[in-house]
C-alpha cells in the first residue's frame, strides 16, 4: 500500500492487467506519442496528460498502438478487435471527441451482444477524460456520461478517487461488455492510499463515503469529494449527511439510493453534466416514482446551467457545482417545512 495519484492508479491498473493478460492492448492518439522525435524518444507523451507513460517501453508497439487522429477508425478497430478475441483499451483522449465515433460505439459495440443473439462478447474499454475546471473550453470540457448511460449495452464508470479508479478500471478490463471509463481530468494529481496488488471493484454497487441521518447526497466522480467537503461543513452545523458514490451510472445501484433516501427523507443530487436529461434528472425520477412517500422535502439538484462550458475562468468556476452550492442545497432542503395533509 502506498500513496498514488489518480494518474498513477490508472497507469498501474493498465500495467498490471497487461502483465496478467496478453490479450489486453492499448490504442489511441498519443498513448505513446512523440515518436520520431529527437534522441530516440519513443513515448515522450504517454497520453496527453501522461497517464499511459512507460507502457510502450514495457509492452512494445505491438500492444501499445499510436493511432492516426481519426476516432471513427480506431474506435471501430478496437470494437472489432474486442469481438475477435482481444481486450482493447482504447483512449478517446477528450470525451468530447465521441462525436466522431458515436456510430462505432452506439450502433456497433453496444449492440453486438444483442444483435448476435448473445453469442458475441465485446470486451472493450474506452477511456476518456471529461469535465470542466481545466480551462479547456467548450469542446474539451463536457461531462458526457448521460449520453453513454442512455445507450443500453454500454457500462459506464466514473471513478471518484485513485483507489476507486484502479479497482474499477481492472473490473472494466475484465468485463466482457463494452465499458466507457470516464476520468475527470482535474483529478489526475489527487492522491490516496492505493494497494500495490491488483483488485477489482464490482460494477453496480454504490459506495457510501459517509453515513448520516438528515440528508442523502448522491454525487458522481469529482463531485463526490466536493459533497464530502460540504458534508464536513454541515456536520459542524449539526446536519449529518449520507454521501453516495454510485461508481457506475450503468448499471445503477438503485437499491442503495432508495434505501438511503428512505432513511433520511431528503435528497440532493450533485451532477456536473449538462442539466437536461442528466443523472440528476434520472435519479430524481427514480426516487419520485419509487420512494415518493419517504420524502420529507422536494429533491434538489446541484447542476450546471444549460450552456456550453465557458472558457473564462470566472465563468467556468460559476458554471460548476461547488462546495458552497452543495451546502446551500442541503441547507435549503433541511429548511423545507413538511406540511401535513388535512
Amino acid at each position, binding site marked *: 500500500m502506498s500513496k498514488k495519484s489518480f494518474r498513477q492508479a490508472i497507469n498501474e491498473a493498465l500495467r498490471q492487467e497487461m502483465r496478467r493478460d496478453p490479450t489486453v492492448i492499448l490504442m489511441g492518439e498519443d498513448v505513446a506519442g512523440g515518436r520520431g522525435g529527437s534522441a530516440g524518444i519513443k513515448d515522450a507523451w504517454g497520453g496527453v*496528460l*501522461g497517464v499511459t507513460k512507460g507502457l510502450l517501453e514495457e509492452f512494445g508497439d505491438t500492444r501499445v498502438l499510436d493511432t492516426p487522429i481519426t476516432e471513427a477508425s480506431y474506435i471501430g478497430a478496437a470494437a472489432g478487435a474486442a469481438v475477435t478475441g482481444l481486450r482493447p483499451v482504447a483512449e478517446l483522449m477528450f470525451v468530447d471527441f465521441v462525436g466522431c465515433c458515436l456510430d462505432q460505439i452506439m450502433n456497433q459495440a453496444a449492440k453486438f451482444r444483442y444483435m448476435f443473439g448473445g453469442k458475441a462478447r465485446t470486451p472493450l474499454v474506452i477511456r476518456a477524460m471529461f469535465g470542466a475546471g481545466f480551462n479547456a473550453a467548450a469542446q474539451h470540457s463536457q461531462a458526457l456520461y448521460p449520453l453513454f448511460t442512455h445507450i443500453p449495452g454500454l457500462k459506464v464508470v466514473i471513478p471518484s478517487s485513485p483507489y476507486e479508479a484502479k479497482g474499477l478500471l481492472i473490473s472494466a478490463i475484465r468485463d466482457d461488455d463494452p465499458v466507457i471509463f470516464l476520468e475527470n481530468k482535474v483529478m489526475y494529481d489527487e492522491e490516496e492510499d492505493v494497494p500495490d496488488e491488483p483488485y477489482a471493484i464490482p460494477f453496480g454497487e454504490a459506495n457510501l463515503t459517509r453515513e448520516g441521518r438528515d440528508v442523502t447526497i448522491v454525487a458522481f466522480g469529482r463531485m463526490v469529494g466536493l459533497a464530502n467537503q460540504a458534508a464536513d461543513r454541515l456536520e459542524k452545523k449539526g446536519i449529518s449527511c449520507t454521501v453516495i458514490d454510485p461508481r457506475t451510472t450503468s448499471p445503477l445501484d438503485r437499491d442503495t439510493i432508495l434505501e438511503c433516501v428512505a432513511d433520511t427523507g431528503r435528497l440532493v443530487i450533485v451532477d456536473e453534466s449538462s442539466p437536461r436529461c442528466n443523472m440528476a434528472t434520472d435519479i430524481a425520477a427514480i426516487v419520485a416514482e419509487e420512494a415518493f412517500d419517504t420524502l420529507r422535502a422536494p429533491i434538489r439538484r446541484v447542476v450546471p446551467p444549460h450552456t456550453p462550458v465557458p472558457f473564462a475562468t470566472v465563468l467556468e468556476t460559476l458554471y460548476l457545482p461547488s462546495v458552497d452550492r452543495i451546502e446551500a442545497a442541503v441547507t435549503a432542503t433541511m429548511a423545507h417545512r413538511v406540511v401535513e395533509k388535512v
Partner: protein
Amino acid sequence: MTHDITPITMPKFGLAMTEGKIAGWMVEPGAAIKTGDELVDIETSKITNAFESPVTGTLRRQVAGNGEMLPVGALIGVVADPAVPDTDIDAFITRFQADFAASSDAQSDSAPVDEPVMMTVGDHTLRVHERGEGDGTPLLLIHGFGGDLKNWMLNHAALAHGRRVIAFDLPGHGESSKDVGPGTLAFFADVTAQLLAQLKIRQAHVMGHSLGGGIALTLAHTAPHSVASLVLVAPAGLGPQINMTFINGFIEADRVRAVQDVLKYLVHDKSLIGRRMSDDVLRYKRLDGVQAALRTVADACFPGGHQGDDLRPVLAAVGVPVTVIWGREDEILPVTQADGLSTSVERHILPDIGHMPQLECADKVNGMVEDFMKSKVVAT
C-alpha cells in the same frame, strides 16, 4: 493596496508539471508591470512558456535567477508598489521561503513512527507491526481466518508496555503476499517461526485468536522452545465443530451487504458491525488471489465442514502456561470446546460476548493477558 506584496511563484502549466526552469526573465527588477505582461519564460520537460504577471505593480525582486530549476509553488519573484520599503520585501521573502520549506518538509519528512512495515520472510512478504520496547518477553499476536493485524487494534498498543508486541498479517491475509502454500496450520506455524527468527526473538508469549490460536498451539508443538506461554482466544483445534455458513459466506461475499451479514456471526453485539468494517473487509477481499487463498485454507483446515486438526493432545502435552479466553455466545466456534481441558489451563468464559472478545471487551481481555504474562514471568 500600495502596501501589498505579491509573491510570483513557479506556475503549474500542466497537470504533470512538478518543477520548472527559469528559461529567461523578460522584465528587469524595478520595471513597472501590468496584469498579463509577460514576466518570465518557464521551461518544463514538455514546453517553454511565457508566464504572465498575475498583478499590476513593480517587479521588485527576481528571487530565482536564469537557469534555476524550482518546484511548482516556489518563490521566483516579488511584485510590490515602489513605496514598499526594501526591508519589508526582505522580510516577506524570508517568511515565504521558511513557510515553503516547512510545507515541503511536512510532505517528504513523514517518517513512519508507529506504522507497519513490509518484511520478506522466506518466500513471503509479510506486513508486520511492532510496538513497544523493553526487557519483557516479547508478545506475538496471531489473527484468525480472514482477519489481519487490525483485529488487535484495541489490544496491540495497550499491551505494548515493557516489551515488544508484534502483530502481523498471515500469508494470504491483510497486506501480506497471497500465497498460502498448502494452507495448513503447520504451514502457518512454520512461517510464524521464520518471522520470529527474523525478528531475532528467541522466545515469545504467543496470543492467537481462532485459527491463529490453532497456529499458536501448532507452533508450541513444532517449535516448543520459541513459546514462553500461550494465550488462546476462542482457538481452533479443540473440537470438530465450526460455523461453515460463516466460513463459506466470508469467502464468497463480494458486496457490502453480504459481508455485513456474515460478519455479524463474529460478535454478540451486532451493532458493532458497521458499514466501515464491511468496507475494510471488502477492500481486502477484492485483492487478486484472496478468494483462492481463503478457499485453500478452508479446504485444508476445515475439510468436510469440520475442523480437521485435533490439538487437544498438543494442548495436554504443551509444557508452558496456557490461558484460554472464550465468549459464551461464540457463534463460530462453540464455547463448549473449552470444556474438559486440563486444570492447569487457566480458563476465562465471558458472558454476553461472541467470537471476538479482544474486540468486544478489549479492556477485560487486555487485563487478563497482562496479569497472565506478569504471573508467568514471576513463576518462571
